């Protein structure tokens, strides 16, 4: 197994911490993992992205240049990164903010109304974890539970009160992912 996941969106959408959550959960599931943030002036606001590699064997290159999975949180990152996804890859996109414009790609692409779901849960900041949940529910790369368990490691102690809402976001997303897997939704 070698998964190279790119998570991309606006700064402030929780891109980096969702990426760290995936990396931490993967590590706890005994995978080899690496997390790399977007680099350069982009760090200072605007777009944000990070790459996470999960593998059964030691990771050669931790740079995610040809993602097997894209989690796109906004329009510009969808447009920029969707074409980079490798054949056989997969995209989950935040359909609350992204219009795919009828894009045609030779791999599965799934709409997840991440912002809408997060707002229903009462905290729009957990939207990115909805997308992560969907990916895990669909792909079963690692169990969603592993990501839930990693929340307390990745969130600083003063944010632990947000664990329940993040957990719900992951689970809601995972349910949607499983539906997609079955061919529904």
């Amino acid at each position, binding site marked *: 197994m070698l998964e190279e996941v790119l998570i991309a969106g606006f700064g402030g959408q929780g891109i980096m911490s969702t990426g760290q959550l995936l990396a931490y959960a993967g590590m706890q599931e005994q995978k080899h993992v*690496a997390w790399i943030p977007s680099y350069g002036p982009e760090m200072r606001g605007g777009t944000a992205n990070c790459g996470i590699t999960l593998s059964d064997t030691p990771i050669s*290159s931790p740079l995610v240049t040809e993602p097997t999975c894209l989690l796109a949180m906004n329009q510009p990152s969808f447009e920029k990164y969707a074409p980079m996804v490798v054949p056989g890859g997969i995209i989950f996109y935040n359909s609350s903010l992204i219009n795919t414009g009828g894009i045609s790609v030779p791999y599965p692409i799934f709409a997840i109304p991440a912002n809408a779901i997060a707002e229903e849960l009462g905290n729009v900041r957990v939207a990115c974890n909805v997308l992560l949940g969907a990916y895990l529910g669909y792909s079963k790369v690692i169990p969603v539970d592993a990501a839930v368990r990693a929340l307390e490691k990745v969130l600083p102690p003063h944010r632990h009160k947000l664990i329940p809402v993040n957990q719900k976001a992951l689970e809601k997303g995972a349910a949607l992912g499983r539906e997609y897997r079955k061919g529904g939704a």
Partner: protein
Amino acid sequence: MARVLMKGNEAFGEGAIRAGCRYFFGYPITPQSELPHFLAKRLPEIGGVYLQAESEVSAINMVYGAAAAGARVMTSSSSPGISLMQEGISYIVGAQLPCVIINVMRGGPGLGNIAPAQGDYFQATKGGGHGDYKLIVLAPASVQEIITHMQLAFDLADKYRNPVMVVGDGILGQMMEPVDLEGTGGEMAEPSKPWATTGMRGRKERNIVNSLCIVPEENEKNNLQLAAKYGEIQRSEQRWEEYGLDDAEWVLVAFGTVARVAKGVVDKARKEGIAAGLIRPITLWPFPEKAFNKVIDQVKGFLTVEMSLGQMVEDVRLCVQGRQPVRFLGRPGGMVPSVREVYEELKKMAGVKTCG
């Protein structure tokens, strides 16, 4: 033991603390900031000192003073800041003091940018400041290796009474990977430093830390002593990693972050039937010439890949001495070569027709 996920820049700090370093002097610069942030918090908690200097010039001279006082001491910076430290580094070498210097390299020349680069290879391995000297230069390629290299760096610095530079780049610094801290650090014998200027306190002879040697005959002797030391380091301290080298016909040569890319290339090439391997210099100085001699008769050529216009490739050529072709692929200025572009270059070198 449970592994922890750690950023490379934090690992430099954690590794230093585990190696017994308690003193840090530095000046802020991107992209190494998480390292001083980490140490500013941690060092005072364990009775150490974190001090933000007014410049890199001052910082390296504080390192000089702390090293003279017998401490395990370090500084950290990035390319432009390391340039400013060159004067102090030369003095530290001249006075034969141990210390560790981190360079999280960025794109140059001049202000350049904060993207990952390896354009300081010459500066790190060929001296850097004035005078005839060498630094021991380590180039970790993973967060775990940063931890072990920090211990190694302090040990080598003390053993040879010479500064050790550990080089990385923004990717290595920002990257998070799991590290296993078991077996690192812990109790260690404090190296004896009878030469340190700690105040005489009953010692009969004064200790003097100095690089001034006004009589040319004596200074030549000094330089020859340094040369003997460097000869010993070259014989004893060459380190490298071999990846798929046993039956390799085409050998990639890369260090640090680029070596990770190169491993990806080796994996890809192997899958597609090209017998590729990798020599990853771990010590950039002493350069691991032994690794090249070992495989020179078995291979058909070397492809050196760097995030620069070609610096380490000169050392590769010196090792290979024209016995095999040496090719170079570089991305300067803060660009990172991709697995795909390096693989295409490898195929060209191996004479494999590019499909599509």
